């Protein structure tokens, strides 16, 4: 089942200045396309605290982009800026070439950007099914009264949305927990439900805020598989904040490294791993 019409033909390798031949070939094979999200000179400050200073990077279609950095580097703030939760003092964000001065979260969501939360903002008392249905909110056109009476158009809409949600439940292999209140489920499965709710929006860009936090090795493997499946089957572009280096190196196509609100590295995992700045700031050196 295809939520997003994924481009079936691999586009011609995009012109990437200065990139080595191997990287270009990899991009072509992965079907990575043109720039879909561009962040230019973003600066964000909370009073005297400069959370982000002149950050610029881009995200290409269908790729998996990781944002890494020590705690307090500004990664979640970056994601919140893209999401419209924070308004940066300086800089702009463009989605598919359209630049916006100020965006609120609803507008961003309507443009096809979904996100998950580090602290799982799920409705603990509601079932898995209802939580994921909540993610279909933007796709529902009937108003409150029609839904209250649930007659005709509202009923049809409910059925159509339920079908999509069941597809997601099937995709994430949580059928056995369909009616279980989310609060009763193990943490790893709750994260899956969070991912499901984000997928319910049929996003073109998916922002994942530390999806592997608090998971053991098995759960991380499961979550990695789902992230790769989402990217592969639905063609969703993924921006991922993550601390686990092995996950970042294995999953992502390109990596942005932040440190104290500044960008100190940007490139493929291999390039970033050997960047001396990144090693000093984040990966650690022997003293």
């Amino acid at each position, binding site marked *: 089942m295809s939520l997003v019409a994924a481009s079936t033909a691999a586009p011609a390798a995009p012109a990437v200045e200065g990139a080595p031949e191997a990287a270009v070939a990899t991009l072509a094979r992965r079907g990575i396309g043109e720039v879909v999200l561009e962040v230019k000179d973003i600066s964000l400050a909370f009073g005297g605290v400069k959370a982000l200073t002149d950050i610029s990077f881009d995200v290409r279609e269908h790729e998996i982009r990781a944002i890494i950095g020590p705690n307090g580097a500004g990664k979640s703030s970056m994601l919140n800026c893209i999401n419209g939760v924070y308004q940066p003092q300086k800089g702009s964000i463009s989605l598919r070439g359209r630049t916006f001065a100020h965006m609120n979260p609803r507008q961003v969501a309507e443009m096809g950007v979904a996100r998950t939360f580090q602290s799982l903002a799920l409705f603990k008392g509601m079932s898995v099914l209802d939580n994921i249905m909540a993610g279909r909110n933007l796709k529902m056109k009937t108003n409150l009264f029609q839904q209250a009476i649930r007659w005709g158009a509202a009923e049809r809409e409910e059925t159509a949305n339920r079908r999509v949600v*069941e597809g997601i439940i099937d995709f994430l292999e949580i*059928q056995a927990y369909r009616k279980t209140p989310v609060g009763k489920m193990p943490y790893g499965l709750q994260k899956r439900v969070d991912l499901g709710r984000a997928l319910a929006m049929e996003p073109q860009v998916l922002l994942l805020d530390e999806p592997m936090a608090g998971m053991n090795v098995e759960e991380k493997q499961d979550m990695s598989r789902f992230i790769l499946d989402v990217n592969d089957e639905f063609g969703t572009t993924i921006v991922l904040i993550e601390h686990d280096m092995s996950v970042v190196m294995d999953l992502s196509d390109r990596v942005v490294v932040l440190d104290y609100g500044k960008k100190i590295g940007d490139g493929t995992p291999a390039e970033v791993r050997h960047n001396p700045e990144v090693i000093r700031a984040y990966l650690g050196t022997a003293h």
Partner: protein
Amino acid sequence: MQTTFPRLLLEHAAARPAAPALREKEFGIWQTLSWSALRGLVESLACGLAQAGLQRGQHLVVIGENRPRLYASMLAAQSLGAIPVPLYQDAAAGEFVFPIVNADVPFAVVEDQEQVDKLLEVRGRCPTLTRIWFDDPRGLRNYREPGLAPLDELVEAGRAFASSNPDFFRGEVAKAQPGDVAAMFFTSGTTGNAKGVVHSHETLIDRAAAGARFDKLSCDDEVLAYLPPAWIGQNIFSYAQWLVCGYVVNCPESASTVMLDLKEIGPTYYFAPPRVFEGLLTSVMIRMEDAAPIKRWLFDRCMAHARRVGSARMDGKPLSWLDRLGWALGNLLIYSPLRNSLGFSRVRVAYTAGEAIGPDLFIFYRSLGINLKQLYGSTETAVFVCLQPDHEARSDTVGVPIEGVEIRVTESGEILVRSPGLLKEYYRDAAATAEVLTPEGWYKTGDAGFLDPAGHLKIIDRAKDVGRIVGGENDGALFAPRYVENKLKFFPYVKEAVAFGDGRDRVCAFVNIDMEAVGNWAEKRNLAYSSYADLSQKPPVLELIRDCVEKVNADLAGDDKLAGSQISRFLVLHKELDADDGELTRTRKVRRGFISDRYASLLEALYAGESHRYVETEVKFEDGRTGRVAADLKIVDAKTFPVTRRAA
């Protein structure tokens, strides 16, 4: 009944085209396939397979869970006179090589990416395998393997062919004879290589019909198909009897939703091996322990009453009006809700087989009003040899021989069976066939047992496993390992047990604890544990198991024939015995010889009187990789009891 499976399909489709044949839960909703729709699907698949080149007499491998389209593929193969060979979906890739090579299998129909990956892994060793079709396309989008295609393609091609050749399907079905081979099942055998058991339409349909008549099955019955399709029992209950009676087979959504789907469907005809019933009882007891005091009191009182009068009531014996009133009240308050939560509200007939079932367990279910009975049979006999009649269900017998079955017991105590349901042969293994089928048509079951005065068959053990104690104070005594192991497994804390003693001076045993039951027991006593291996060696747990062993010993002491089989020493294994490691068969039976070789050092320690021994074992994970598990196992002595003569 002289007919074939495809002909039965056509009859049902003609007589009741709109009636449901199969249901599958997909996307949260039970999707129904009617008999006429099924017929259409089978016709398309048969035409597709014929176009792809499947010849009469060739074999089609089918691997997966119970899915309507896999069932349809089996029927489609049979329509063309080809032979479906279902294989265990949880087997490692290497286990598929022998069946495929042995039968020169050209085509395979599998469920999903997991099975496709396994077949692709061993493709190099199976040169005859040219085409693989898969049902669920998830994850297979980018696979570019020659001969690999979705089942949808086969259905499309077949539909096109059928519309231009409308009589082809009927013609092919008409060519088949009841004596033709219908299917091949691999019995993984507790010793040695797998053997392909060949059955014809006749043998399977005859036994299916005999069983259906015995329990008065009809087209109104509902069955849940959740056991591996490669196992003949699953085939008989959800395929052979399904086609004979025309009832509805329901396929659950996934392995993890089986219990939920069971509750939703409420089957009327149910089969499960004893360990499933044990597991259900354990989960009920565990939940009861956490219930409010008044509920616990009510449960205990009602269950005590049920234990007293429930079985008698199920057996149709007369009860006093007070007892009847008590049971009716208990039914309203406890038994009926409990049956409902287990999914057994509508069960008319529930069978269990494969191993001995504990008497407490048996009585528990019968006293609740669930018609649980035992049956006896094997892959080679198309399952139904002995069945228990409704009012004669006891825990220690396996039933009476049903119509068409003759039973004889040799001097050495081995059970022989003659029936219309016997296998045709072991595929391409005349020597093995001659070993089990006598010229007069008797099948040597390899089980030791006897017929009791009431005409019921009682099984003691596998004939070749029955041994003798040599030396020591019980010199010459009979040793029946399965008998002892089953008694141990009746305790909820013991998941599996292996007893040794043939040719030795005393009996020693390996025990596997049941993680759920013992884990719960440990939590109630504030005993912290980190893993299975850790829990298994905790001194209180060893005490608990010793308690169970000594109770078994006391019980055995009262049986003058088997008193010599008491267990003197035992140890608790640090890892569960697993089919993936070759220690159990795919139907969870213990492979004694393999285990005694693998753990030879532990056996040595047991018999040498050591108090503990360090062991490191290699384990195989589900994806074929290997790892090592190590532990220092403590060996425990158990008290044995002198023989007491039991009152007749």
